[in-house]
């Protein structure tokens, strides 16, 4: 569910010389989105509830946040017993 988390991230791994004692380190580049509609700037918001019911256990998580958009590809990954509720919202940005 990559696009439902906020912000999304691209990760670069840097190798370090062996004498440092470390194999490398990760560099994270979060990515956010703004929406422009009719010349107005908006921050996309999304509320999300994920419910998964298996034979022996049930999992539930819910969240809300800024710069979030729903990844429609998730539909293909749903299994019997999975339920996702999402609400797309947006808030206009006003120049101060």
């Amino acid at each position, binding site marked *: 569910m990559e696009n439902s988390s906020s*912000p999304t991230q691209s990760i670069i791994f840097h190798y370090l010389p062996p004498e440092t004692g470390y194999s490398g380190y990760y560099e994270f580049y979060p*990515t*956010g989105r703004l*929406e422009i*509609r009719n010349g107005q700037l908006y*921050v996309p918001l999304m509320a999300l509830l994920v419910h998964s019911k298996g034979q022996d256990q049930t999992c539930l998580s819910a969240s809300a946040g800024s710069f979030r958009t729903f990844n429609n590809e998730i539909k293909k990954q749903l299994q019997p017993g999975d339920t996702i509720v999402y*609400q797309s919202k947006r808030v206009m940005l006003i120049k101060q």
Partner: protein
Amino acid sequence: MNSLYKNSLLLFSLAAFIACKKNDELLINGQYKPASTVTIDAVVMLTKEGQITKTSLIKEFVQRHGQQDYFLFDKRTDLTDNNSSTLRLDFHEDGTVDTYYMNESASSKGKISQRTSSYIDITAIESAIMPIGPNPNRWYSWKILPARPNP
């Protein structure tokens, strides 16, 4: 007649070009904050069997799991997400953006409580993921860069 047709076509092309150009040009600079109201686009429930959009069914499901605070089912459109309401975006002329959250507690109201990133590369605005066309709505993405070293 042929000339009239050509002129009309030219005029139409020019008008279309101006319209597209105008759509591309959105002057963004200075500090922005969220409005106090939210526009709700959709609430959808998905299962493997399909999708449900009937609000009463979704509301019942969400309430049954005690997660109704995350969703807006009434006509209320106030910004209930406190974290988002304190968001500030500061666009600079050099193409970078500061994004941070203001502290709303009484003791330190107006001070920055959480600077989530130092700079956003607004030049990445070129990587629009929505096509240019008759649809005036376009999405832009930006890339958050590491903090700049102090001069």
